């Protein structure tokens, strides 16, 4: 296919999720970069205007930059498949599997990547069986500290790391405010490392690993979006052997989950140097403080050019 001079790109960002603000910021950022690289870009919120845009502007490609439900659970991509419009990113089934943390963990584990032991339970089970006994069983099985997180969702919203068992019920309440199913996971401490993967049509490439060092406490919303509070190291301060293992794991997870074009994988490398898979993202954050853009810049990429290459690859694969 002949490359288009000014590919028409529709970015879909916003939506009605808890992560709307981050999505809007990601959308604006990618739009600016793509425009600087010569693309003709429209940005739309996720509402009835999207279908109108598809009709009226007939984009060559759609880039869904929605975070949270609808955006990452594959449903918007299902609609794009229905409309027959090429899009950047993974196909609906892969999104569904990745978006659901317990499923993603199981798939990735089958692909040979270690992930901390965990149990996912809906609120109804706690209510029907009794929370106190069930929490005690979880503690006995998984030990302390524990990470409690919504089974679906991003930006660390609703996530708590619990060191004191007395705080576990509160963490469950906070988590269930975001959704009906909680993932309770053995909390691994160590270096937080993000592995970003892009595929420009020649197979997946792992960008330099980004290591996240917070000022104390978890890499939560506060640490992510208050610039200056968290220090990033690109590439991550890992020895070569460990780095290679993380890269292998990221690629194994990418392939195991059947992902396409772009993804980010979050790991924790424990004190023994073992990288543990925590979660995968089919629509990684693309704000000015997000991890994938930092990784790309660490590899010397011009973000506008890189994003345009992703767009062109998506047009090619259709």
């Amino acid at each position, binding site marked *: 296919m002949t490359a288009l001079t000014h590919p028409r790109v529709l970015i879909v960002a916003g939506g009605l999720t808890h992560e709307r603000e981050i999505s809007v910021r990601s959308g604006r950022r990618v739009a600016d970069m793509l425009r600087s690289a010569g693309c003709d870009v429209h940005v739309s919120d996720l509402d009835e205007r999207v279908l109108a845009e598809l009709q009226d502007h007939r984009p060559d490609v759609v880039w869904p930059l929605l975070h949270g439900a609808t955006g990452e659970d594959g449903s918007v991509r299902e609609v794009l498949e229905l409309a027959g419009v090429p899009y950047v990113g993974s196909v609906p089934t892969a999104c569904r599997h990745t978006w659901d943390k317990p499923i993603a963990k199981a798939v990735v584990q089958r692909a040979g990547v270690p992930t901390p032991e965990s149990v996912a339970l809906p609120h109804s089970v706690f209510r029907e069986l009794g929370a106190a006994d069930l929490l005690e069983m979880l503690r006995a099985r998984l030990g302390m500290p524990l990470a409690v997180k919504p089974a679906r969702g991003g930006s660390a919203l609703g996530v708590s790391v619990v060191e004191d068992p007395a705080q576990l019920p509160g963490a469950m309440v906070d988590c269930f*405010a975001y959704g009906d199913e909680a993932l309770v996971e053995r909390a691994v401490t160590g270096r937080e490392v993000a592995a970003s993967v892009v595929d420009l049509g020649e197979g997946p490439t792992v960008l330099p690993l980004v290591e996240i060092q917070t000022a104390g406490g978890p890499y939560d919303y506060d640490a992510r979006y208050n610039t200056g509070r968290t220090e990033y190291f690109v590439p991550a301060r890992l020895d*070569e052997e460990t780095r290679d293992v993380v890269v292998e794991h990221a690629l194994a997870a990418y392939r195991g989950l059947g992902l396409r074009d772009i993804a980010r994988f979050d790991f924790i490398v424990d004190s023994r140097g073992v990288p543990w898979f925590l979660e995968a993202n089919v629509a990684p954050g693309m704000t000015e403080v997000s991890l994938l853009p930092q990784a790309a810049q660490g590899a010397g990429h011009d973000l506008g050019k890189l994003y345009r290459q992703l767009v062109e690859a998506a047009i090619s694969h259709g």
Partner: protein
Amino acid sequence: MQHDINHAAGNHAAGNRLDQWADHYAARTAGMSASEIRALFSVASRPEVVSLAGGMPNLAALPMDAVGHLAADLLGDHGTTALQYGSGQGDPLLREAILDVMELEQISGHADDVVVTTGSQQALDLVTRIFIDPGDVIVAEAPSYVGALGVFKAYQADVVHVPMDADGLVPELLDATLGRLAGEGRKVKFLYTVPNFHNPAGVTLSPERRPQVLQIARRHGVLVLEDNPYGLLGFDSGPLPALRSLDPEQVVYLGSFSKTFAPGLRVGWALAPHAVRDKLVLASESAILCPSAFSQALVRRYLEQHDWRHQIKLYRELYRERRDAMLAALEDLMPRSSWTVPDGGFYVWLQLPEGLDAKAMLPRAVTERVAYVPGTAFYAGRTDGADDATHDGRSHMRLSYCYPEPERIREGVRRLAAVVDGELTVRGTFGADATTGGIPGVPGRQGVESPGPDLQ
């Protein structure tokens, strides 16, 4: 497999905090941070969400044609002055007209003692700027207007809250707090109070208590900062006498056209004792040179040529209808909560069933497509003489009825009731006192928890 990791073991790159000025900011920026809660308000701007979180006046009742003609005439006849710099203290003729507005609350003042500001928010900033050194104490109601608390924090004041009841600030508790603070050698610079249709509490300082509060402040040598944006928006009776009308030397009075005319013009004012006024004028000139000449001229023409008293009456009727819709919906749909009954203004202050935490519950509300402001946003420090567990705002929320149509208000309350039921069920599962109590090892980290001014 390919990868282009350009990493050399033992030769690590330096860390990057993505802000080369991260170590350069003033200490006063410590509280100026994003928060998970504030990010959730992003959804509230979508039409599917019933926002009971905003504070936007409802301008549908404003005669836009008439205002448009005023603006056109203004630019046609006096464009070169309306678009020029003006006096730092504000247009003298507007200051005269402001005296007429304040007369409705029995204030008699002099136009020379009025300082026009960019909304009364700027007046709050100026008063705080000229009085507060870091560590000085400001006594405020519990809860208190979040926009004022933001200013106080920015000037590194120590805010001490004093409880209110249905009649507003409790004089005995104010007296006890001021006495205790004096005993501790603390320097209390002023009492900040919203006496009418309080934001967020919805209550009004009773006429009986007004002289008592002033007398206590006078006895303790404490200035009163009377913030009165809603005073003319009473539903059931005429305006009460302003604190300023009872004790001109003890009070700096702040007024605004944001709720009675239009907030987009950003015109407010301070009426202050003359020595205070002198400093306010110089402080304002150093901050903004002068308030908008165009906005001031438009407000003046509006006051001169439009029946603004009738317009305020229309606003009152509009807000009363919405208040009634809110109260009826709460009565019908929220059996286990309690709330204040405002006689004016924009807000109801709702207390949740025991054990519920409005902040922790907000994500659930977003899922249900309804938004409110958690009570914690309206506290900046400890509440004197009160049990902390009930006076940090966790158990409360602010509901605004100023913007949505009455049927939307009812729909919002219906959704809110579902949120409360859902949260009660989860609390029932895990225990009513289940709380994470903040983040272990990260004490006192709290970003801005209120929406921006552009939320409906």
